[in-house]
Each structure stands twice: as structure tokens, then as C-alpha cells.
């Protein structure tokens, strides 16, 4: 479905950028809606505490154990990118609206931008770097290349992580909002409608959706879930 992505995939994480995106998304409005207020500081002034001290935690990332020290505000996304240098995982909206930051934690795809690193102490994390490497592409990565399923590539690591997790969800029979009857159990067969719905948490501003669906369908067919 060629839905207009409501958010600007800007890397500007200034206050204005973040709130405008939030406003547009919440209002369900399309680009062009005038902003009708500035950024008056409405909250009552109060003394802010200084940053809490950094605490040690362990993340197992792509099979490797890492010890790191972060303060409580650090998201899993920032810990992966800034502390561990794994910059394959992308920061798009940073507000859970675009899916560029998708990683697989304990077998489940999540938005790493809304996860605190400390809340994942001891967890097993797979990022795009752990899914494939040049010369050893994961079948879904190869399918994205073969089907031309991207243009700028910024959303692609998130798309791939999402698609890889999706295969396992289908195998174990998870249903979706387009599944005709949730009472019936068994392997979920990925029709194009199912693929579109199940990949809807990953926006692509270039609009490569048609070929993303093809790439996912190719791999799903190979794995017996389409």
C-alpha cells in the first residue's frame, strides 16, 4: 500500500524536528499542514537532576559478548551505534514510527530506538551485521539486491531484520490483522497482503515497497511459508 509516510526522515534531532514529526503523525495530517504554534516552553521551570551515573551491562550482540557502561537514558539503538560502533542499524525517526532501527532481540524484532539499553542487560541481539556480510549475504539480502528492493538504502537494514524475523513468525503460525480467521492455527502462508501488513512497521521513503514485497515473497517461498 503506497501510504504517505507521515514523518520526515531527517537526521535533525533538534527539538523542532522531533515535535513537528510527532505533531504530523498524531494529527494524521499530511505534509503542508501549517504549524499553528511555536515552541513556547510551557512546562513549569524545575531543577533538572544531573545525569545518573553510568552502569555496567552486558549485551550479547551477533554472538559476541560486550561489556559496556551506559547511563540510563541511552537507548539500545545508541548503545549499538555509539558504544559498539555497529552503525548498520539506522536512526530514522527515533520515535518508533519508521522501523529503520529494527533489530532482533531474543528472537523478536523490536524498535531499538524505544528500548533502553539497561532494560536489555544480558539479552541476545542480532543486528544487520550479524545477519550477513559482503560475500556471505543472507538469502533475504540477496533477494533485495536481485529484486532492486531499495534506492537510498537507509531503511534497508531495518527492512532486512524485520523480514528475517517475519519468516520465523510465519513458521510458528503467528497471525496478523489480515489473517482471515485467527481461530485457525498452523503455519501462516505469506500472501502479498500478509507480507504488506507484516512489513508495515518499516517505512521506505523511496517507495521501494513493490520490490520489497517481491524480495520477501521469494525468500518466503523458498522457506515454504508462501
Amino acid at each position, binding site marked *: 500500500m503506497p501510504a504517505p509516510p507521515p514523518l520526515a526522515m531527517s537526521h535533525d534531532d533538534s527539538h523542532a524536528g522531533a515535535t513537528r514529526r510527532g505533531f504530523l503523525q498524531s494529527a494524521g495530517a499530511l505534509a503542508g499542514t501549517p504549524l*499553528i504554534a511555536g515552541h513556547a516552553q*510551557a512546562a513549569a521551570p524545575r531543577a533538572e537532576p544531573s545525569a545518573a551515573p553510568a552502569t555496567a551491562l552486558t549485551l550479547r550482540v551477533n554472538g559476541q559478548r560486550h561489556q559496556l557502561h551506559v*547511563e540510563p537514558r541511552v537507548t539500545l539503538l545508541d548503545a549499538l551505534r555509539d558504544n559498539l560502533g555497529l552503525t548498520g542499524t539506522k536512526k530514522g525517526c527515533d520515535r518508533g514510527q519508521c522501523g529503520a532501527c529494527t533489530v532482533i532481540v531474543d528472537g523478536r524484532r523490536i524498535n531499538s530506538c*524505544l528500548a533502553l539499553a539497561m532494560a536489555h542487560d544480558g539479552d541476545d541481539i542480532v543486528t544487520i551485521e550479524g545477519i550477513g556480510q559482503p560475500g556471505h549475504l543472507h538469502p533475504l539480502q540477496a533477494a533485495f539486491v536481485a529484486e532492486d528492493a531499495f534506492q537510498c538504502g537507509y531503511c534497508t537494514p531495518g527492512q532486512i531484520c524485520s523480514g528475517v524475523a517475519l519468516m520465523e513468525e510465519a513458521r510458528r503460525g503467528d497471525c*496478523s490483522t489480515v489473517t482471515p480467521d485467527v*481461530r485457525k*492455527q498452523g503455519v501462516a502462508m505469506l500472501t502479498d497482503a500478509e507480507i504488506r501488513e507484516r512489513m508495515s512497521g518499516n517505512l521506505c521513503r523511496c517507495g521501494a515497497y513493490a520490490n520489497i514485497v517481491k524480495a520477501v515473497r521469494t525468500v518466503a517461498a523458498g522457506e515454504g511459508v508462501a
Partner: protein
Amino acid sequence: MTPFAYRRAQSVDDAVRLAAKPGAHFLGGGTNLIDLAKGGVVRPLLLIDVSRLPLADVTATPDGGVRIGAMVRNSDAANHALIRTRYPLLSQAFLAGASPQLRNMATVGGNLLQRTRCPYFYDTGFEHCNKRLPGSGCGALDGINRNHAILGASAACIATHPSDMCVALAALRASVRVRGPRGERTIAMADFHRLPGDTPQRDTTLADGELVVGVDLPPGGFADHAHYLKLRDRASYAFALVSVAAAFDMRDGVVRDAAIALGGVAHKPWRRPEAEALLVGRAPTDAAFADAADALLQGARPVAQNGFKVALARRAIVRALQTAGAQA
């Protein structure tokens, strides 16, 4: 985000004890709270991580109902065999919400406590929001209010509750179990969320420091005829303009019991038992469905930009009931 301390609760009692500290908030999946903290809407001083508490089971209860722990992730609840087979309405509602990634993170307890996505609440650039800054006025009343409430609103607030899960829980007459400093109590879904009145800063009837520990579903899940219909501006990954949880049981060709609740139209899931009663004893006809829709929407008062929601909701109720009735 402004700085905060982080503590992982070791037990439910530990979490309730920690909640007495100033500026404390419970952290479940974080999909709403971290977003709100990033926007400066919520400025927690302490996050109490309750996500690893042993409240993550879905279990059948001796009375024929099902108990869902507060820390069960939305995706796990949606896909649990007990929910899919006994309460398909709830499974469908879960699956209509958010995205697969967010459903993998978000907890059932956190879903109950979602804040409104009213832009005047969510964007601290706006000065007028009685929910965020009590007494500051309502920016939506004369602002952009296309997706605001048509039922149960007040002059202080016309925000809607954003959850899909809660709409199904209301229809299914679920109850919420909470634990606080004074022990455990159960709150009926109908009483859990509030209308805004003069105090829209309070979304629920939870007392300070109370932690949601689970949701109880009564026996009788309307599994034969149930449909959750969600209408939104794009096909997926968006909040509802209007949603309907509709279900009924049949006996001898007439409706024996019915369950209907609306989302996207009020400060809480909108349910009126008298609308459901209008279906009981009648054949499931379009005329009966329309009567129920009219009763549920009686007194609807749109604001400048959301008049369309009244007609949309009326048709959505009828269509959801028709779809439920067409199920084998």
C-alpha cells in the same frame, strides 16, 4: 530526555515500594513512555523496570475464563492459543494496533495506560493542554480536531483514548487486577478509564503507586461471531479514526448476548450495555444492528472537524456486526 535513574524491580512488592519515590514511573515495553520522555511530555526522575516481573503468563482460570499477566507482550497475547480460540475479538484488536515490532515490545499493562495521541498533548510546543498542564486550556477545542472525541468529552478535554486492545477488553467485560500499597484490588474495564470532566490529567481510576498486574477475561468469549473493525487514514500502522469491537452469541436463530465497544470516539472505550441489550432476543438483521448503533451513538456531539465520525461510526458498527454474523 531529561536525566532519570533506573531500577529493575525484583518483585511486585518491590515495584510498589519503589513507586512511592518522587517522579517514579513504571517501565514496561517503553513504546509509549520512552516516546513521551523523548518529547519532554513526561519527565521521569525514576524508571522502575517491571518488564521482567513474573507476570508474563496467559492461563486458563477454573471459572472458564483466562488471566493475562500484565507483562505479556501484545504479540504474545494476540497469538496465544487460548486468546485466538476463545477470545478472537481480543486477538484481532491486538493485531490491529501499532506494528509487529511495537507489539513485540508493548505489554498488556502498558497498553492499558497508553496516553492520548492528541497533538496538543503530545507536543510541548503547544501551551494549551489541560491534560499535560492542568488549567492551561484545550488547544484542540478550537484547533485541529479532526480525530477527537464525539462522545463523553468536556469543555476541558476532547482527547480520545488510542488503544485497540482496551476496546476489545471493554466489549468482553474484562477486569483489571492492580496491586498497590494497600494490597490488591480488581477494577472492571468499564470503570478503569475515566471521562475527562474537569480533571483530564487523570486517564484512569488507578491510585498513586498502583501497578497493573493482570487482566481477567470472564468465560464466554463470543468466539463464534466476533469482529474488530478499525478504520484509519492508512491501511496499517496508524491510530483509529473509529474502531468497533463487535461480537454476539446466537441460540435458536436469535441473539443470546452481544458485546459492542467503540474506539477513537471518546476518552475511554465507549460501551453502553443498553445498546447491546437491544440485540438480545432478536434475529441478527441489519435493522437490529442499526438500532444498536443508534443507541450507542446517542448524544454524540462532534466538534468543528470531526462530524464525519458520527456517520462513520454508525456504519462501522453495522458493518462490524454484519461481518461477525457472517462468520462460520
